[in-house]
């Protein structure tokens, strides 16, 4: 359990919680900015990003020209990492990360970084809208068609891979016994309905670099005959399959469960999930509305779920990077950020399988924990970072006569209204008290001690949760 600071208002705590879940955390200044417009208005703003070219897209392309024609996921990394680290509307990236993990396409097979980036952008554009629209878009995504072998699905010889994963992993799901609310016949019918949906052939990338992938529908290779799918009979094609899927309660429940798991807690709450499934059904499957219900719920605001989610490697790396705020323009180090998530077990644009990543405490083993602590501790000590400078200023402005408890609280507040368990807080206070020296403005040892406290905070078990 965590304890709220006696000096900090509930409003600040809630805003910080919202921004950790809907984004990658926020600096104390950002929290103050959002507080001026209020919680509900902030939720609305986060859920309604203006989609367009990132204002620094030209700079990204300039400094990382190989990522313009990204032939592999590795070449594409700098592009997405920059946006994860800097996009002013973090939910645009967070929702892309969510769908990237759910409708996983990986560079291990789809060796086409440009297409991977195009798919991430698809998730930005459609990830908060109607689920049916998203499913249709992903079903016409050439990378997905290639990833799940649909170019090998022909009339008279359907490949079931896409139809199966569409049902099992993308929409309706299966229970712990491996049973879904669909049958093998439904999988076969879906596969037939998607015959002729494929990626067009692109030239090989080995001598002129890659060419953009394109979706291709071949009506001559499409099975237009009658099919029975989830109890409905007709000459269904892929669009119909998606429509019928989205009419199912199992789909509403599956999407609600995955959203809850990603945005709320690692521990499922059946009552909350059923309620979110209702919201999904009542609002034509609009993800934005479901997320609004989540973020505005008493459950989300309760202590029950506060700091109950293990940070994913992306949460930790890009949250810390945003806090430190040392990148003015793209540079070599920013291009390497994705390497850090990979070292922690999350290779962006290259999930381990079509299942994506498992959320929760599976993220952390002893090796990953060391990577997490080393990265966060190293970054938070960068005094060249504008964010670190702002944090130092905040701590300095907290007063010259701080005792240990006040000093720890000043540091936690400056780092984005972080909360700690009583035990962790007590250990840090004891450590601060052991110095017996109050903050002395402009004294270098005060700066060193504050940086050290920042490092201790990001090294606590508490910092691994959001």
């Amino acid at each position, binding site marked *: 359990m965590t304890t709220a600071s006696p000096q900090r208002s509930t409003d600040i705590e809630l805003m910080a919680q919202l921004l950790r879940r809907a984004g990658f955390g926020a600096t104390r200044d950002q929290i103050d900015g959002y507080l001026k417009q209020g919680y509900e208005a902030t939720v609305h703003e986060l859920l309604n990003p203006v989609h367009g070219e990132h204002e620094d897209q030209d700079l990204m392309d300039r400094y990382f020209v190989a990522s313009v024609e990204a032939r592999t996921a590795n070449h594409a990394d700098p592009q997405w990492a920059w946006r994860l680290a800097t996009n002013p509307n973090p939910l645009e990236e967070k929702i892309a990360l969510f769908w990237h993990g759910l409708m996983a396409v990986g560079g291990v097979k789809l060796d086409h970084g440009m297409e991977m980036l195009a798919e991430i952008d698809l998730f930005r554009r459609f990830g908060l809208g109607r689920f049916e629209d998203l499913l249709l878009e992903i079903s016409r995504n050439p990378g997905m068609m290639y990833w799940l072998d649909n170019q090998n699905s022909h009339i008279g010889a359907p490949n079931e891979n896409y139809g199966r994963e569409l049902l099992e992993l993308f929409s309706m799901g299966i229970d712990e016994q491996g049973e879904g609310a669909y049958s093998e016949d439904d999988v076969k019918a879906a596969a037939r309905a998607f015959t002729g949906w494929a990626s067009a052939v692109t030239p090989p990338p080995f001598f002129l670099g890659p*060419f953009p992938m394109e979706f291709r529908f071949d009506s001559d290779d499409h099975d237009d005959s009658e099919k029975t799918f989830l109890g409905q009979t007709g000459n269904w094609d892929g669009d119909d399959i998606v429509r019928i899927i989205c009419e199912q309660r199992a789909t509403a429940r599956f999407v609600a469960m995955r959203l809850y798991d990603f945005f709320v807690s690692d521990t499922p709450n059946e009552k909350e999930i059923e309620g979110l499934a209702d919201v999904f059904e009542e609002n034509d499957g609009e993800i934005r509305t479901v997320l609004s219900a989540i973020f505005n719920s008493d459950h989300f605001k309760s202590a029950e779920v506060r700091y109950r989610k293990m940070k994913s490697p992306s949460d930790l790396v890009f949250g810390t990077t945003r806090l430190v705020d040392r990148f003015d323009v793209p540079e070599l180090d920013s291009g390497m950020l994705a390497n850090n998530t990979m070292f922690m077990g999350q290779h962006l644009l290259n999930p381990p399988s079509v299942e994506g990543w498992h959320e929760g405490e599976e993220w952390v083993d002893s090796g990953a924990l060391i990577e997490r602590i080393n990265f966060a501790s190293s970054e938070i000590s960068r005094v060249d970072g504008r964010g670190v400078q702002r944090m130092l200023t905040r701590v300095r402005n907290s007063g010259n006569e701080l005792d240990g408890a006040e000093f720890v609280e000043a540091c936690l507040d400056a780092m984005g209204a972080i909360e700690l368990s009583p035990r962790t807080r007590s250990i840090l206070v004891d450590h601060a008290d052991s110095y017996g020296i109050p903050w002395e403005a402009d004294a270098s040892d005060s700066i060193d001690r504050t940086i050290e406290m920042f490092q201790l905070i990001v090294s606590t078990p508490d910092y691994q949760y959001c």
Partner: protein
Amino acid sequence: MSLQNFSYHDTIGIASFLGRGFMNPIDLRFDSTGRLFVLSRSNASNKNVRVSAQTLDSEFLYEFANWGTDPGQTTMPTALAFDSRDRLYVSDEHMNNISVFDREGNFIERWGEFGSEPGQFNRPSGLAVDSDDNVLVMDHLNSRIQKMTPDGQYISSFGSDGGGPGEFNFAWGISVDSVGDIWVADWRNDRIQRFTADGEFVSMFGSSGTADGRFDRPSGVHVDHRGQVYVADWRNDRVQVFDNRGAHTETLFGDATLSKWCQEFIAVNPEQAGWRENAGLFEEEKRFWRPSAIETNSDGLVLIADACRHRVQIYSRLNEPALT
């Protein structure tokens, strides 16, 4: 897209992480003997940056300035320039310095460091050498051009941040013409600026857009010995040609054929040839993708670094009256 004053000549290059071929070529220069030096920017994380030397007949000679931070190595190299002694200058916008090599690729020295004081750099990008062998460096995040001696001593500078005359916004490529004037690809201002050798503003042309004479992040500018101005209109994927008063005369979109190296690759990889045939994107193959820099020679050849297609496209300039 018929050509008026140019004819397509040839293409050199193949995507390659090392040795023969290029990986994201973003600058190119001839030495005094006609060897072509191409700068591969690559992906820093893949560490395939290099300068490679080859003949116009596609004979690969050698490479140098490979990945690293030690003397003789580069990390995020951006531009090339030769002086009259065939010393090759290479700017590095990660290490914030200029490395100097001889024409055989032997490292001579490097100078420069991060900062905003005279002689310091914040992401040096475009390079040019004037008739006195002084080195002009587009110190782009300091929004200035610094004139340096060949051994890196500061001489002078001009420019500041902004969108007015004489101001720069992430400027990139620079060129010195036959009378010593300095031309600048003022990248984020989508324009070309011209200065005297002393840094006095002369003129500018261009604005944001896709019509003739408009630019979307021009990366390279080159003025040939007849005063014709070539602009790598980077995000418009084209090269625009102007007279030296800034009047648009022609636009090149790319006409590449398969280079000798590509043909050799396909010949021994028939499955790749079949794959290419099935895709059938032959028109798309011809076009520029992020053309970054231009070089010319006295034989009337115009070479364009086609960054995202890993090649150099070569045109011949047809006979035309000399520009005044």
